[in-house]
């Protein structure tokens, strides 16, 4: 079996990629994907930890986290649609009526 530490490492990498992508990319949908990446990193960590501790709760956490991620995507896309309707763009840089 793979050492959970490797999984943790991978998840850390995913998290960093996700976080980095979130503030480097302009397109809202890509940012959303990055966020998903972060959530998945957490999921992996949960899974790895569950294995590490031999504790089933971790799996449950993972399931819940997936559900959360899913609803997040749903809400996100809905909002993006509405934004597009009004601003005709979903570039994070360009949607900046509100500032200061």
């Amino acid at each position: 079996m793979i050492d959970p530490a490797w999984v943790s490492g991978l998840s850390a990498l995913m998290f960093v990629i996700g976080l980095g992508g979130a503030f480097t990319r302009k397109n809202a949908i890509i940012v959303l994907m990055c966020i998903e990446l972060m959530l998945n990193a957490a999921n992996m960590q949960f899974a790895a930890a569950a294995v590490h501790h031999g504790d089933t709760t971790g799996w449950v956490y993972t399931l819940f986290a997936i559900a959360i991620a899913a609803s997040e995507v749903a809400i996100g896309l809905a909002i993006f649609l509405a934004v597009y309707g009004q601003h005709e763009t979903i570039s994070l840089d360009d949607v900046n009526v509100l500032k200061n």
Partner: protein
Amino acid sequence: MSNATIVEPFGDGFVNALCPELILFAGLLLLILLPNLGRGTFRIPGTQLRLPWLLGGKRFKLSSDPRLPAWIATFTLGGAFLDVLYIFSQGLERVSIVSESGKELLLINGFSRIFELIFFGALALAAFSSMNRLQVNGIGSKISERELYNNRRQADFYILMVTCALGMSVVALAQDLFVLFIGLELASFSTYVLVAFLKESKVGVESGMKYFIVGSVASGVGLYGLSMLYLWAGSLQFSVLSAAFAESGTTALPLIGIGFVLVGFGFKVSAAPFHFAAPDAYAGATSPVAGVLATASKAMGMIGLIRMLLIIAAPESSDGSAVWLVCLGVMAAITMTWGNLAALGSDNPKRMLAYSSVAHAGYMLAALTAVGAWNWDAAVAGDASAAAVAVMTALIFHLVVLVAFKLGAFLVLSILESEGGASSLSSLGGLAKREPLLAVAMFIFMISLAGVPPMAGFLSKLLVIMGIVRIAVGDMGAEIADGGIYVLGDMHWVWWLALLMLINSAISVFYYLRVVVVMFFDEPEEGREGPLPRGWQVRVAILACVLTTVLVGVAGDSLIRLCEMAAQSLNYNW
């Protein structure tokens, strides 16, 4: 914990214990069902027989009344609120909901109850006052009242409010970090949509998107933190985490894990530097929603922080907690100063209130820092645990009364908003002439926010400062009486946070007063000289806020005691 009644999910006493939440749930169902009742019929397949099953079709007059969802939501939330009050009056029971596998999921005690009070109270007021003020079309669009009312989206709005309340109460009850997180997400998702509810306006959707996307990143970081903690401790039970932290909390993994979690909650309380989306969100959302964000949502975030703090502030782990205190203290200082400075130059009253709520978050973080420092020096610790309780009391008290004046201020703005926008200070111009009582109410909210006596805001700030100073001074008074010699520098550094906090509240007077000056001094904007839009509900809600603000300020003793009881009921490890 041992003295708590242990109840299994859906076991005996479950209904009693979770009565407010069940009321919410029932209300939620009603909200979904009732507005959809109509003359809809169901044709039994294969026959021409149409059974009236009441869903869909042309709605009844009653069920099509746009105010119906609002009333339902108000009664639901208000009912839950009153139920909590009733429970308080009957005396509290400490109930622990434990899963079959022995994991403690929820704990009902004074702490959770008082937070339920905050959540339900704030949301009930918001729902009540949104009743005739909710705009679903773009601001200023020429749409008749009738048309406005006759809109099914009303129901969505109130459903989201109730789910938000539900999520928040889960946060208050949770005894497992992950359960807490789920509650948090439930409430957050609701607020994301609520913020973006004005999808017909540019600012509405924009604020929703920003709030959502930044919030998601923060909660992503938070979730990752959770996973790290889980990796470290093998459980996310508070009790387990706390014990583990006391044992080996100084390693990097748990510390960084908690740090990540802090980011997640930090966003909710809008602590710097995670607060950036907050002003945008407040400015774009309708005022009652913004009010909810500034009060209930913030209280929810605070619960998370308090829980984290209780984990790390266990007595033996002074090293780890010291790191944390510095971290929190710096964050508190930056947050309050940043918020105040930003508010100073803000011309948009909603943004101003948003920044002011950032500042208030700073004050609360300072209080939290003090809680963490409760046993900083055994020599002068004396009644340290009582002192810690006192600070916690102050924190809770602050969150409670914040609902009254912060939400109240947003409600006043909501009246102006429904008239034609409240995005610049001048929209408040001449309010004293147009509706004096409203101006007086706003004035009371403003000076209460600034912390001027005799308003509730003063008492809460006083309590926070008293708590901080008490921690900083510790038992020196008694030591001095016994011949000890102490100097200013002997006090814990949180004393300086108190000083900074007071200086900040002095700065804050500047922008709060500017609102007052505009209301009482300036002339109304052109075209806004006439009377304000009518609507008794929002005014009743404002009146309730004013009364609370003043009465608590003048005679806050019983509320202080209530908060003290709540603070004591926390699951301390000392």
